[in-house]
């Protein structure tokens, strides 16, 4: 009985200092990454080649077939792949290959000395970076809209959902990639597995095509996997025609996958860190 009144304020203080760590790390990231805006711009420009190619291919097919492919119009494709660029950006996280680097270069030794898990710094730093990327993305989205003429008329509820869902996507992908990164504690040749993962993700997330264009069995499988909730759902929440119930449902499924990913990461981290022994420093 006596422990309860003590632990409540301690818990509150812990949360407050955690929020503090997140905010300061994110602020540092914003300041630091904004310096490299030219470099980031080149990166963004290189990135839009991929969706522009998909967009042109599907628009061509839509035009050949009298305006639409399976009910999806050229305007829809344009909107889909323009919003795609932002969602793709939110999907770039502290990826599994970086764990290999972090372990090899000994950066992990430094990270381990800090009082909180490296995961927290990763999430906070990339979250700050995302803010910079969103700002840089806006002119590109504007330019693409002028060229490709998207049909986009979201309801307020869809805009709100989208604003939340892109961060949900960010967290889902962070959890999955960080969990996958734990493999680096066991092998130095994770690259092959990461490539395989990226391919499965490419096909099942909606990055390649809007999922309705996939064969039915693929759609069925991908419903039970996390990938589309980090990619197709955020795009569709803004571009598509989801009901309010579907929007809320989508956000809840995102939350579910974040928690599942976090659980996997925690289990993997616990056994990974036991195997780790620092070299050099």
């Amino acid at each position, binding site marked *: 009985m006596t422990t309860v009144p003590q632990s409540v304020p301690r818990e509150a203080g812990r949360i407050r200092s955690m929020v503090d760590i997140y905010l300061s790390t994110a602020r540092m990231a914003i300041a630091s990454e904004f310096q490299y805006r030219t470099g980031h711009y*080149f990166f963004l420009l290189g*990135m839009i080649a991929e969706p522009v190619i998909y967009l042109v291919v599907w628009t061509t097919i839509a035009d050949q077939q009298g305006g639409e*492919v399976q009910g999806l119009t050229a305007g829809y494709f344009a909107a889909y792949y323009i919003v795609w660029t932002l969602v793709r950006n939110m999907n770039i996280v502290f990826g599994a290959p970086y764990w290999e680097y972090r372990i090899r270069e000994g950066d992990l030794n430094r990270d381990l000395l800090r009082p909180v898990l490296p995961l927290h710094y990763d999430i906070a730093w990339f979250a700050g970076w995302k803010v910079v990327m969103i700002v840089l993305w806006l002119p590109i989205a504007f330019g693409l809209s002028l060229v490709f003429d998207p049909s986009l008329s979201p309801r307020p509820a869809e805009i709100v959902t989208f604003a939340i869902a892109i961060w949900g996507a960010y967290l889902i992908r962070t959890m999955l990639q960080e969990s996958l990164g734990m493999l680096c504690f066991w092998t130095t040749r994770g690259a092959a597995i990461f490539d395989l993962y990226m391919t499965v993700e490419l096909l099942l997330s909606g990055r390649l095509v809007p999922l309705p264009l996939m064969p039915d069995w693929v759609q069925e499988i991908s419903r039970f996997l996390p990938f589309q909730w980090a990619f197709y759902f955020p795009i569709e929440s803004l571009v598509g025609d989801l009901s309010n119930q579907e929007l809320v449902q989508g956000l809840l499924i995102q939350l579910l996958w974040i928690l599942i990913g976090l659980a996997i990461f925690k289990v993997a981290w616990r056994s990974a860190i036991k195997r780790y022994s620092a070299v050099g420093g």
Partner: protein
Amino acid sequence: MNAVRVSWLFLKLGVLNELQYRVNFFVSLMQAAIALVTGLVVLALVYSHTEELNGWSKSELLCVLGVQILMGGAIKMYIQPNMTRLIEDVRDGKLDFALTKPEDAQVLVSVREVRIWQAVDIVSGLIVLAVGLSRVTTSFGPPEAAAFAVSLVFGAVLIYCFWLVIATVAFWVVNMWHAVELFDGIFQTGRWPIGIYPTWLRVSVTFLVPIAFAVTVPAEALTSRLDWQTLVLAAVFTVVAFAIARWFWRYGLSKYSGASA
């Protein structure tokens, strides 16, 4: 002919060097397999919704994919490693080592690196190409084969010229890290018939980044679409681009003051 001798020597050296790392062969094999499967899945997906894309059938587009993989392999094996090394050397001040040698500097910086395991892509591209070709109904004889070979060489030289210009920019702009990603992204446009792109993009990937000449034109030669005017244009453009690239390289070099010493 000294240039050829030097290139050959560097090639032998590079091969010996790479042969030490045999596991990389399997990594390349795995990556090539993944890339190939992805490419085929995308193709199957597109043609499950349509019979033809801008007048190209599935088998013909398989040829395009084959040429794109083949050319991509050649670029990653020989052109890109040399050019990224050039960019890095300018930044680190190591370019002076190449410049002080008694040989044409452009030849030296263009032949120093070779990644032989990328040959896996060349082989996989050839296989895709052969499969595509066996299903194409148009005739394929010695004239088509010759036109294909010639246009492939023009394409490779053009890509080299493009990369040399980009790498030369490093004399002024040190921050060129994203050049590779930028190029890899744009190179993917080669997977599809160039005719589907809007005009601004089509012109860009023909003359600005010569992907149309590197992939589409050879693929057109394979599928009997190539007219001799295009081939002549490719030849003229290759000569002009080579002259421009060489001039720009020398101009950049004359502005280069060295970083070390």
